[in-house]
């Protein structure tokens, strides 16, 4: 406990906790929608695109790589989600192609035009987010807070529409809801969440933040509202536990958070089975 108190006196630990909690909250909100729309892997695909964009940004020597990463990711998200229904390439195939291409080209670019002495370390921390969460500047924390407020507000305002579009897009369209526009909003939110989430757990693990809380909540709860609330709470709790454990046990932050998410998921599976009255 003393050790924990000592750590909390450092601002970078507090920053990490604030940012971690906010990112966890945002990423869990749309998890339900993505899982149900069969887009669980969009997080993976987009984060790899973001990885490629970061590689380009570092090679070009941009001081603030967000200028490049955010727009590129948002555009990819819009393309992926809008093409989902009626294209030559099916949604999951498109995600796979985009994701591996961006990953491969990003690494290639980093290798060829490398400016850093510790390339492997750079790549590893981008993929697994090992240290970036603990090296946040105040300006990044503020950016993260602003983004989170925007994401949560947009989600709350459009909650009913997002539900309708997810549950039955055709009906929503038929009754005059601009489904295309809401898919666009969902895509943009996802992209923002992923770029933020990469800081916390790295680009390979960001999908976990999005889908695990939603999957866990869906095991136990039976209405969209309760599932959404539960996954948000669960995600925040898991992120906090993960960050604290990683500080105390000196484990990598990202993978610790995901490990806690997995543990929570298993608990919820058991709880869901017990609730049903059978362990099948």
């Amino acid at each position, binding site marked *: 406990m003393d050790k924990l108190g000592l750590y909390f006196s450092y601002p970078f630990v507090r920053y990490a906790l604030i940012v971690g909690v906010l990112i966890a909250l945002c990423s869990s909100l749309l998890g339900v929608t993505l899982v149900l729309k069969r887009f669980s892997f969009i997080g993976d695909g987009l984060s790899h695109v973001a990885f490629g964009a970061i590689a380009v940004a570092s090679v070009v020597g941009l001081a603030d790589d967000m200028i490049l990463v955010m727009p590129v990711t948002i555009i990819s998200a819009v393309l992926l989600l809008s093409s989902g229904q009626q294209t030559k390439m099916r949604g999951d195939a498109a995600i796979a192609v985009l994701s591996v291409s961006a990953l491969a080209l990003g690494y290639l670019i980093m290798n060829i035009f490398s400016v850093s002495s510790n390339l492997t370390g750079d790549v590893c921390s981008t993929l697994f987010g090992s240290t970036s969460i603990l090296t946040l500047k105040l300006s990044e924390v503020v950016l993260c807070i602003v983004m989170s407020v925007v994401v949560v507000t947009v989600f709350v305002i459009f909650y009913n529409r997002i539900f309708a579009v997810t549950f039955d897009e055709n009906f929503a369209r038929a009754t005059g809801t601009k489904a295309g526009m809401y898919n666009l909003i969902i895509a943009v939110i996802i992209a923002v969440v992923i770029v933020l989430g990469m800081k916390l757990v790295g680009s390979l693990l960001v999908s976990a933040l999005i889908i695990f809380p939603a999957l866990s909540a*869906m095991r136990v709860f039976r*209405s969209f509202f309760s599932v959404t609330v539960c996954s948000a709470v669960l995600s925040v709790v898991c992120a906090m536990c993960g960050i604290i454990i990683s500080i105390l046990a000196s484990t990598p932050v990202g993978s610790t958070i995901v490990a806690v998410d997995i543990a929570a998921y298993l608990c919820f599976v058991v709880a869901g089975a017990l609730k049903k009255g059978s362990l099948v």
Partner: protein
Amino acid sequence: MSEIICRDLSLGYENSILVSGLSFEIRAGDYLCIVGENGAGKSTLMRTILHLQKPLSGEIEYGEGLTPSEIGYLPQQTVVQRDFPASVNEVVLSGRQTGLKGRAFYSKEDRACAEENMEKLGIADLGKRCYRELSGGQQQRVLLARALCATRRMILLDEPVSGLDPMATMEMYQIIKKLNSEGITIVMISHDIRASVEYATHILHIGSEIFFGTTEEYRRSPAGRIYLESGIADSEDMGRREEDA
């Protein structure tokens, strides 16, 4: 009073015309069944009426004050819905989307409307239940209640009884008949030709031959005769097979 008039419609996708020369009129209070083979363009017609798709040519005229978003719609169930965690209340309430306009949340009125329609369909006590845990018949009633929330005049149903057991099918037909007698115009896609000629006032047959007219005229038309006889033969055949088993 005419609710919908279609003139010389051609439907289909970019390269393939499914059906052309389609003209018919739906009047307030009608009960129209759309029948025809698979892939003849029945669902496409429905999607076109709802503005989900553009006709290749021809025009659709809507009756006074009837916008496509005021037509209730009961689509075929999607894969997504089978494991969707949503309570019945949430699903029915989502039918009030049109009325939301600029608001973010549903009002008391919206909730009252949802409740009223759930009572009408006998599912008021299911409100808190999870949609995916209901039986097929109950799910269809929930979706019908949602459609009723969106309209007071007209409902389009896309094969509302497919996959239902005989009991639930009967109940569904009774509910639809009751709604029709309360003045709601019904347009229904159906494969159940017997029930179609039993309940509907008008029949639209889409296929190699297009027929539109009252049910009586359909019984006497060549297209109707062939289809009716084969339909009845089919179901009798099935009945016999069931007896054998």
